[in-house]
């Protein structure tokens, strides 16, 4: 046997316990991530009347409702900025996150026909559904820029840190998405848990209210929710309100990375069952 053959030799055998992440395999399929994301985008708003405007309408209408009930009626403080922009700044990363959870957790089951027929790194499915949400995020972000002009808010130099908080949101979304998608193959309960989970999670995140309302002694536990770090970061970077990144951001980032890594390993461990269970 010549060397060329040895190079391409691969061995298929049963795996046990925790599997290696095999990121090289994922990298060699990077084009498929792109194609799947593109497919999700292409198909998402087909046969809808308003099309991509939904990406704006969802956070925007939530912002309107929040502004009326929390801002005007309940008089929730908003760190000295107008309540609508205060909540909208938090709602866009939140919309990215909640949409990612929804789509990623269903991605494996929805594409079961592919999983049972062709090999590709399964992680591509939840990954591309998270990435498809980024486009919605960017569309909704344009509205935020419009609102900032309307409310005459000039971003400070903090704005250069925004991409970091955006990445933090993505890391959290992918981490949780991997966990939920793998669990959903084994336990379809996830479908029923998800609406509650997203709702609870939203209340645990300072979207309708500022994190300064949370008592100081709870702050450390509060920061365990990585979305707290994301939302606070967005407000600090864009509106200049709240605390500059500190312990809270650090705790959030550590939790987010832990979620991502554990999610990837759990996913890889469960991956071998997908084709037989889905």
């Amino acid at each position, binding site marked *: 046997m010549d060397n060329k*053959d040895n190079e391409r030799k691969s061995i298929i055998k049963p795996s046990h316990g925790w599997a290696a992440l095999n990121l090289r395999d994922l990298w060699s399929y990077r084009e498929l991530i792109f194609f799947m994301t593109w497919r999700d985008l292409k198909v998402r708003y087909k046969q809808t009347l308003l099309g991509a405007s939904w990406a704006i309408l969802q956070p925007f209408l939530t912002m309107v409702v929040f502004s009326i009930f929390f801002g005007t009626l309940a008089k929730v403080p908003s760190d000295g900025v107008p309540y609508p922009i205060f909540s909208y700044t938090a709602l866009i990363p939140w919309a990215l996150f909640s949409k990612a959870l929804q789509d990623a957790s269903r991605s494996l089951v929805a594409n079961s026909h592919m999983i049972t*027929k062709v*090999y590709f790194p399964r992680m591509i499915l939840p990954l591309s559904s998270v990435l498809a949400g980024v486009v919605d995020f960017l569309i909704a972000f344009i509205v935020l820029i419009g609102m900032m002009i309307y409310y005459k808010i000039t971003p400070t130099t903090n704005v250069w840190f925004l991409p970091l908080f955006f990445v933090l949101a993505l890391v959290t979304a992918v981490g949780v998405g991997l966990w939920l998608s793998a669990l959903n193959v084994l*336990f379809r309960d996830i479908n029923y848990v998800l609406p509650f989970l997203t709702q609870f999670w939203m209340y645990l995140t300072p979207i309708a209210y500022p994190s300064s309302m949370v008592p100081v002694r709870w702050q450390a536990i509060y920061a365990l929710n990585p979305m707290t770090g994301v939302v606070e970061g967005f407000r600090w970077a864009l509106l200049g309100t709240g605390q500059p990144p500190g312990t809270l951001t650090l705790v959030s980032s550590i939790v987010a990375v832990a979620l991502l890594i554990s999610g990837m390993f759990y996913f890889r461990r469960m991956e071998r069952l997908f084709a037989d269970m889905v």
Partner: protein
Amino acid sequence: MTHTAIKVNHLGKKYMIGSSVNAYRTLRETVSEQFSVNKKRSAVLKNASESIWALNDVSFEVNKGEVLGIVGRNGAGKSTLLKVLSRVTEPTRGSVEVYGRVGSLLEVGTGFHPELTGRENIFLNGAILGMRRNEIESKFDEIVAFSEVEKFIDTPVKRYSSGMYLRLAFAVAAHLEPEILVVDEVLAVGDAEFQRKCLGKMSDVAKQGRTVLFVSHNMSAILRLTEETLVIDKGNLLLRAPTAEAVDYYLSSGLTQEGQRIWQPNEIDQKSQFIPTAMRILDKKGNILETVRSTEPFSIEVEYQIRKPTKGLRVGIYLLTSHGEFVLTSFDTDDPIKFDTHTVRDEGVYHSKVNIPANFLNGGRYVLGLNASSYRIKTYFHDEQALAFNVDPSGAPGMQWPESRLGPLRPALKWEIKKI
């Protein structure tokens, strides 16, 4: 000098059947299993008895450039083998050494999205099958030409006819260039013209020196395309032999079921609305026969259960020679009057019985297939090798010459001899 392409060592794949295979687990079950020791033990015991080895200690080797056929009954483990080889599912035991990229054609059109256009689906499907973007781009025109859908390439595929859809899907897959190609039953679908085209493409692939593993129920395709064939039954590799010998062995041994085929519940998807239970060869008096006489009529009876009212259902048979050549296809509602009087079949157990006249078949071995479908709506069941039987030619026309007659039919034809 030959090189190994695939080396399969003692491969085994276990499936759990019953509760945990189709139905997914719920959290409650898992949690209660964790907490209750007894229950857990009983669940383990139950699972042990409900597991089957879809593949059991299978070992073989395939050399580069070899075209290997795989035959076996439904549920014999053929598809499981291909799924393991293409890394869709993991084996439970044993290992496979693979040299080179494996391309699989387990089902054409995987990942096609109805809302996307033909063009978009070519790229998407190509990527799913493991092609690079530039690879797809360079073959794009070839793929489109092969699929014959040039005019509709920018139309969403949901507007395609089923034939167009299939041609496009096969075209993408056929232009994959892996070192090893595994093909499962692509030819079970599509019209005769399309099947011819697929077979042509497959033999081209083989001629290019690539390794092909080809699973099919179509014996003539297996005979035409492959040099050697594996016979698999109940997860075991029974025989590896030159194709003609293997096909002969397969048709004459595995299928013999004394003139009757009974489908066990675990062989059939119990959620289907059409569940075949038996197929029998009967003589005039209703006895089950394995060998019929060419000079006497016999009948073929299909017993099945309909689970919910089914519209436009046709239950029919295929009759094939032992070489896999079709002799005829016939459905119980072929007669337009029957078709009008049986528009909907309600739930219940049914018999569809057809009489085969005397002096019709030549002596030899034949295979019966079963198909239940609603035309252009759905195929509920399809098995081209349900049952085999023998025809004894004694007493048939021309028996004064002890030679074997060519052709599957042996009718008593009226000849006129005149001197002019």
